[in-house]
Structures are given as structure tokens and as C-alpha cells.
């Protein structure tokens, strides 16, 4: 306990001390580990002459904590999900982008300019996007799942063989979709109904799992899990019996974006980095490497069709994606959400 607290406070302290780390002319990028090809930065430096350094974060929340504590000093480009980009913008920590420095924005799908968290991409540029659905072992389930209720109220043979995502937004999502509510609802009555449903579901779950759910499918520990489409692809790569489906009630449309910090002292270089990513050959290489859809029309059009055959969810069209609601920052509603999730995870 004490150890934990100290950890957090010390972190905040050290981060603020480490503020002035960014050297002149060099940009610092923070991304999820493994969410970008390893040689990408090297190629970027070769192509542009700009030095770049990579740091990693495990979660959106982790990088948010660091950036909020330090005001963003020491970072130039952050990879965060759309709703976190939105929060950074509202906190004044995201820089307004100069589209003149990012001509490759023209390669994006028109739909990708219409993201609800940032219409017109004023402060964030989409890097990858996709859905959250059901990932399952077609050889271990009796019937192919079609609805979130297949996860929420599993048949007897699936009890103890299912997992749900552990992060609050996705933990609640299946129940909200099943009940027909908005993914961003902060209505107490709706949240309470979703909570009751999820407490019932918890009794049938193997675990809440954000990180190893696809390996549980591969090992056969689980038969049906809630998963992000790209992570399901990692399972499919290891076992062709693993399949992905977007349930009939829908999904969220998540977007991972690149944001330039307002504290960046090398804003033009940071924008050059974003522009480099948006080159069709680079962004296609990213998609092939991480097995996530990228919102870049020129890149996706040149994607190897064999890859789409092996991982069908890479073929989800932007028009289909845009049918789904995007997660938004909950603002003050976050208090209700986090209390509700605690109630679910402490329920017996």
C-alpha cells in the first residue's frame, strides 16, 4: 500500500524534475510497446535527418499521468486513444496542428477526417482504428457467437471459459450495447442497469483480462473473449481456428491517434514525423507489422490481399467503422463510472 502510494508520488516528483530532457532538434515519441515496427525511427531519421527517440507506455492512463504531471515537457509526439487526445486538448496539453506541414493528410480516408472527438483533425491524427468484438475458438464453441449476450449470459458449456476486458470503458461496453445505451452514458439509471447485468456476468467469467486474453484462447483456457480486433489477429496468427466477429448490437469505433504536445520545442519536426507515418508505403508497412487497420486509404489499397483473407477484420470498411459510436472523455461522469466498476469488481 504505502509502497504503491510512494511509487506514484515519487513518479510525479521525478517526472517534473526530468522535465528538460528534450535536446535541441531531437524529438521524443511515446508509443505503446510493439505498436510500431522496430526499424521505423531509424528509417525516419535516414529519410528526414531528424533525430528521434522512442519511449514506451503500457497504457493510455500511464502516459496521461506522466504528461499531466510534467505539462508534457520532454515529449513531442504521443500515441494515445482518441478520447485521451480529447482530454489532452481540453487540458491545453495538445498543440494545434499546422496542416501545411502534414501534406500526407490527403492520403487518409475522408471518413478519418470526421472523427467525433476531433472533427477536421485540429490536434490529433489517426494512426490506427478498429472495433471491439468477440474473439473465439470456432472449434470449441457449440454455436458461433452473434450477440454480446453470448458473452454476457453464456451457455452452460461456456461458463468459466470467457473473459472480458478489464479497463473501465470496455468492461462496461458489452452491457451498454446489449441494453441499447450510449457507450458514453453518464445516466445513473442506465449505468445501474448495466452494473446489475455485469455483476451477473462476473459469476460466469474466467477473468477480466486486458493483456493475455488471446493467449488464453490459444491455450484453450478460454473459448470466447472480448477483444480488440488487432489483438484477436495475434491469436488468429497462432491458431487459424480463432475467429473474430462484431456482435449484432455493434461495437465501439476506437481510434489511436498521434498528438503533438503543446510543450514541444520541435513542433515542425514532430509534424514531419506524423507526415512521414502517413506516407502510403510507411503506413502500409505499419499495418502489415502490427495487424491493425490504418485509416490511410493509399496504404490500405496497396495492402497484400492475402493478409485480408487471413485476418478478415483488416477488411472492415471505413463506412462500416463510422457506424459505431466513438468513446469520448467522460468528464465529471468518470467518478460514477469508476465507482460502478469498483462495485462490479468487488461483487461476489
Amino acid at each position, binding site marked *: *500500500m504505502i509502497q504503491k502510494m510512494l511509487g506514484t508520488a515519487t513518479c510525479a516528483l521525478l517526472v517534473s524534475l526530468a522535465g528538460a530532457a528534450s535536446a535541441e532538434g531531437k524529438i521524443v515519441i511515446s508509443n505503446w510497446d510493439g505498436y510500431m515496427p522496430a526499424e521505423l525511427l531509424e528509417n525516419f531519421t535516414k529519410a528526414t535527418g531528424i533525430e528521434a527517440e522512442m519511449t514506451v507506455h503500457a497504457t493510455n492512463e500511464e502516459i496521461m499521468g506522466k504528461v499531466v504531471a510534467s505539462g508534457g515537457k520532454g515529449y513531442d509526439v504521443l500515441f494515445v486513444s482518441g478520447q485521451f487526445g480529447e482530454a489532452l486538448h481540453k*487540458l491545453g496539453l495538445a498543440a494545434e496542428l499546422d496542416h501545411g506541414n502534414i501534406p500526407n493528410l490527403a492520403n487518409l480516408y475522408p471518413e478519418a477526417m470526421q472523427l467525433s472527438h476531433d472533427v477536421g483533425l485540429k490536434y490529433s491524427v489517426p494512426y490506427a482504428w478498429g472495433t471491439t468484438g468477440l474473439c473465439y475458438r470456432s472449434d470449441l464453441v457449440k454455436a458461433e457467437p452473434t450477440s454480446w449476450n453470448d458473452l454476457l449470459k453464456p451457455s452452460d458449456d461456456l461458463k468459466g471459459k470467457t473473459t472480458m476486458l478489464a479497463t473501465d470503458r470496455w468492461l462496461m461496453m458489452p452491457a451498454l450495447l446489449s441494453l441499447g445505451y450510449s457507450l458514453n452514458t453518464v445516466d445513473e439509471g442506465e449505468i445501474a442497469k448495466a452494473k446489475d447485468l455485469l455483476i451477473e456476468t462476473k459469476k460466469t*467469467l*474466467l*477473468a477480466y483480462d486486458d493483456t493475455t486474453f488471446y493467449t488464453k484462447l490459444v491455450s484453450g483456457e478460454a473459448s470466447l473473449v472480448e477483444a480488440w480486433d488487432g489483438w484477436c489477429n495475434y491469436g488468429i496468427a497462432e491458431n487459424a481456428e480463432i475467429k473474430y466477429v462484431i456482435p449484432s448490437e455493434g461495437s465501439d469505433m476506437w481510434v489511436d491517434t498521434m498528438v503533438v504536445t503543446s510543450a514541444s520545442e520541435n513542433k515542425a519536426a514532430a509534424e514531419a514525423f506524423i507526415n512521414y507515418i502517413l506516407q502510403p508505403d510507411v503506413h502500409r508497412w505499419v499495418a502489415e507489422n502490427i495487424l491493425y487497420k490504418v485509416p490511410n486509404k493509399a496504404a490500405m489499397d496497396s495492402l497484400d490481399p492475402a493478409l485480408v483473407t487471413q485476418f478478415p477484420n483488416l477488411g472492415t470498411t471505413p463506412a462500416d467503422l463510422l457506424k459505431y459510436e466513438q468513446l469520448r472523455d467522460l468528464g465529471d461522469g468518470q467518478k460514477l463510472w*469508476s465507482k460502478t466498476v469498483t462495485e462490479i469488481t468487488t461483487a461476489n
Partner: protein
Amino acid sequence: MVLSRRIILTGPGIAWIILLLVIPCLLILGNSFFERGVYGGVDYVFTFENYSRAVDPLYASVFWNSARVALITTLLSLALGYPAAYCIAMAPKRRQMALLILVMLPLWSNYLIRTYAWMLMLNNEGLINRVLMGAGVIEAPLPLLYNDFAIIIGLTYGYMPFMILALFSSISKLGPELREASTDLGASAFTTFRRVTLPLTLPGIAAGSVFVFVLSVGNFVTPDLLGGGKRTMLGNLIYDQFLTARDWPFGSAIAAIVIFIMMALLTGQAILINRRAKEDEGVEAA
């Protein structure tokens, strides 16, 4: 002269504690009286709201659950650690170091990796279930993972070395003379243990138990991985407030309450031990 030497010797340690313990704790305490910003961060508006939210029975139940799991872990560590520490203390001196290194060896590898190793052992397709099913002892896999049992196993395994080390340092100080005297006066081995060894090693038991309890109650990795996220302990609750909910003030308030309770418990324990020591002195003086 003496004073300046004292300052030179203790200065770095005190500075370290002030910089990395006292100041962060004060920051936590300070944060707990402000409001959460709408988009995370801290709005510097004074409020008691965080504390009024924290007295919800929901969080009390998290506290009791954590205390229960930590207490069972502590008792299990004590029951398993005491005989081990006793044997090491009784072993020939030249072997003691090797045995102690064996106890500490697991600490040289990452806690997370060791926790994943337990997942591989305990899961439905894991080593233990496969062996038991292969041998025909059970027909369906036992639910060993993703429950309180797995959390307690993981915590006990992880923190046992601290218990053994604390007990060892206490037991090894005990010379054979007192036990021999007790035997000479006709006490059985069990009575000697109960009336002589056990009371004299109480400080070691107390120190080891505090280590294990405090570390267990604040752990959040083990409940997440071995508990499958289905049990929220205090560590998870505070972790979630700081990171997932980005509600630092509320996380700080819970943390401050927990620190206060822990300090009250430890102070209580220290007062009891002091009083006992004084009584013992009184007996000797008489």
C-alpha cells in the same frame, strides 16, 4: 565534533527519507483536499468531498477484503516460514549462508515473471491440473486460478523470503543455553518451544508479519493476474483512481486514510511491545 559527525553520518539517510518519503506523503495528503479537474489533473479548490466519498461502505468492504487476504497470507507465511527459519538457524554455520541465499534467490528475478509462472502452473490447462488429470486423481480441472486462493498462494510465495529473513535473524540470536536449561529443568521439547523459544522470537514474528501484511495489502499485480481482476484489493483501488479514473485527489484521500490506519496499527503495536519490555524489566529488577 560529535554533533557534526552525527550530521554527516545520518544526513544522507535523513535527506533520502525526507525527499522520497516525507515530501511525497505530504503531496498525497495535500492533493486529497482538492478537486479532480473535469479532464483529470487537480483543480486547486479546497474540499472535503474526497473524504466524504471515501467513507462509502463499498470502500470499507474493499479494505476488509484486502485485510482478510493479507492476514491469511501473513499467517500462512508464518506457519510455513517459521519451521524453515528455525531449521536454517539450527543448521551448521557454514551451511546457513547457502540456505539463506536459496531463500533470497527468487527475489533476483522479476516479480511479474514469477507471477506469470504461477499462472502457467495453476491454470486449467496448467501443470498441476494436467498432472492430476493424467494420473486419474481428478476428472475435471480444479479451479486453482483467478480466485482468492490463487492470490493468497501468489502473495505467500512472493513475500515468504521477508518472513524467513526476519524470523531467522531473531531465532539465530537465541543461543542453545536457554533451551538446554529448560530441558535440564524437565521441560519437554514442545514446552521449551512454547515457553522459551516462541516468546523470545516474538519480535522477529512481529517484524516478519508486518512486512508480509503491509506488502500484501498494497499489492495490485497479484490480484490482477492471479485473481483475474475479479477481486479488487486496496492496491488496485488506489492504482485505478490514479491511473484509470485519473482522479488523483480521491486516490490520495484513500491512500491517506490507509496510511493513517497503518500508522495507528503500527504505533499500537510499538506501544504494546514497549509496555511488555518495561514489565519484563520490572520482573528482572524485582
